[in-house]
């Protein structure tokens, strides 16, 4: 049995070997290589993967990512955003499609370049947050990552426009390991959008992102997952927050066969604010799993977490949010909420909000609700002449609005609203 599993693991890893030509001699890579000797595919026997089977990812054979021929990416841009663009197609960085004008106080470049040109910064930060020693996919990413974005925002710099990273697939059954490293120095402010879309075909994206939010810094991060309905994604985001920093993540999942997001937030300073918002709209047989960990280590911090799911057909959404409040972390305010709307009898939601509190002077709450569309409200709207379709659309939009209204960029919110409307028309 274990021989079979070992063979399967080696076969899976072989998908990535040829592509990892980059010379990475980091400690993290060595650690991950070593860890991979023992780590196995996660199974539903692991508590952390209880509701999500990864067979669809691990049993597939992936083809080599072909070079690409994409010239028009206008439909993947957020209209009116005017962002810095960092574009990857089939895992390859595209200089032609990207628009990175170097501004004062900001370094944006492909991570492969940072590895050579920003050696000290890179070594100090790379692999210090990722869970490559305990998590299989994180280890795979750490060993086999090809490219991604390196971002460094200098002290006191406020980035003038959002940075939009666009990950596109135009290939049959491709697989890649994007690796991002964001270092946001003291009192700097930045908005980062990471979108994942499919031009054609399908992919397995195994992404790992490490984010350093230093003292007084503000990071607004948006992840838009809108890949094809046969695409899979595992997305690990590891964050460390220093004192008085604000980190906000909005994760919007609109498509994909299997999507797993792992947020690991270490709040290592007083006076921090952490906001995690998530919205997933699922249909067909999609399976969307959001796992979050917020670890309150220091006192006087606040975290706010709301995840909303609108589940159609026979799709599944999983939410497991864990908040730790360590014994030192007095005066923590932690709020956690998961709400699901089931549009059919066949849709399922697994909801597990968890609090682990070791301090005695804290305000923490968590809750979970799963229900159906309020048919009384639908009737009410229809008696006013609103068509049944529009009435249902309104109710879904209203439900999703709790997340959408947190999106501070109007242009991005408008795009998401229209995508949601399209979905239900």
């Amino acid at each position: 049995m274990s021989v079979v599993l070992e063979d399967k693991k080696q076969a899976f890893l072989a998908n990535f070997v040829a592509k990892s030509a980059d010379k990475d001699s980091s400690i993290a890579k060595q650690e991950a290589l070593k860890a991979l000797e023992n780590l196995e595919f996660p199974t539903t026997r692991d508590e952390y993967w209880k509701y999500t089977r990864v067979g669809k990812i691990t049993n597939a054979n992936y083809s080599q990512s072909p070079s690409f021929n994409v010239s028009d990416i206008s439909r993947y841009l957020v209209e009116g955003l005017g962002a810095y663009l960092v574009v990857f197609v089939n895992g390859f960085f595209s200089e032609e499609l990207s628009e990175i004008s170097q501004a004062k106080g900001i370094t944006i470049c492909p991570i492969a370049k940072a590895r050579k040109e920003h050696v000290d910064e890179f070594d100090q930060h790379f692999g210090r947050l990722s869970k490559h020693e305990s998590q299989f996919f994180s280890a795979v990413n750490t060993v086999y990552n090809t490219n991604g974005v390196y971002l460094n925002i200098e002290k006191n710099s406020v980035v003038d426009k959002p940075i939009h990273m666009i990950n596109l697939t135009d290939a049959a059954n491709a697989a890649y390991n994007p690796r991002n490293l964001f270092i946001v120095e003291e009192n700097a402010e930045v908005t980062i959008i990471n979108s994942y879309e499919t031009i054609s075909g399908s992919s397995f994206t195994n992404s790992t992102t490490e984010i350093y939010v230093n003292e007084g810094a503000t990071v607004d991060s948006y992840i838009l997952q809108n890949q094809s309905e046969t695409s899979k994604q595992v997305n690990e985001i590891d964050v460390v927050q220093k004192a008085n920093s604000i980190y906000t993540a909005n994760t919007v999942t609109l498509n994909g066969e299997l999507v797993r997001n792992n947020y690991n937030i270490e709040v290592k300073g007083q006076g921090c604010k952490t906001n995690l918002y998530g919205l997933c709209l699922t249909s067909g047989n999609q399976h969307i799993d959001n796992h979050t960990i917020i670890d309150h280590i220091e006192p006087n911090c606040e975290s706010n977490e709301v995840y909303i799911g609108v589940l159609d057909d026979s799709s599944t959404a999983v939410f497991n949010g864990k908040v730790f409040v360590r014994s030192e972390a007095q005066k923590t305010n932690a709020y956690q909420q998961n709400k699901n709307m089931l549009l059919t009898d066949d849709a399922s939601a697994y909801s597990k909000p968890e609090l682990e509190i070791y301090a005695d002077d804290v305000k923490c709450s968590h809750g979970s609700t799963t229900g159906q569309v309020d048919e009384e409200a639908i009737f009410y709207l229809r008696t006013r002449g609103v068509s049944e379709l529009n009435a249902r659309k309104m109710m879904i939009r209203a439900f999703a609005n709790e997340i959408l209204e947190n999106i501070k960029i109007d242009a991005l919110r408008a795009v998401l609203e229209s995508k949601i409307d399209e979905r239900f028309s």
Partner: protein
Amino acid sequence: MLSIKNLHASVDGTEILKGLNLEVNAGEVHAIMGPNGSGKSTLASVLAGKEDYEVLGEITLNGKDISDLAPEERAAEGVFLAFQYPVEIPGVSNVNFLKTAVNDIRAFKGLPPMLAKDFLKLLKEKRALVELDKKLTNRSVNEGFSGGEKKRNEIFQMAMLKPKLAILDETDSGLDIDALRIVANGVNKLKSADNATIVITHYQRLLDYIIPDFVHVLYDGKIIKSGTKELALELEEKGYDWLIKPEMAQ
């Protein structure tokens, strides 16, 4: 305008309306009174097209059979129900909802969407009619509204949609006397020779403000007595028992 013939409605095998007949002409106000559980609210729901009921019989509006139409189609034909308990819909703004309602009805009639400026003008005009605070029109539908605000919002929506047949289900319940006057005023101002109103109520009180041309007593799923507005006063004085158990009253 409205003609109901031998209307039966049951839910989960229990018959609630048991052969109801009613004729309402344009320009008229009809009051339907009756004790609890007589079927008043069921009649309102059935007329609005609620799908929870098994319905037999004939409902025609201006000669058109509407008994198989969906609620929104009835609305487009000119039926409006002011709810006894208006539903709170968090996240759906009053304004957006009304814009969709107005334009869905226009689409049903083959008309293009209303111009934004015309819509806003209409909104402003009708809001004044029921003295509805501007802030409330921008808020989520009925969310956190007081009882009086909810009922005013119902009449405001009615004003926006200009129905041919308005059914007011216990519109007076939960209203203080000032709110009652405002609501009744709104209804009276909307009255015309081309539309008709059915007022469903427990109490004669509302009928001091909205004067009915006819009063009907609904009991056990049927109209057992019809008369003019004096009947309401008589009911106020004597209750329903003398109608329900005439042999005992004698």
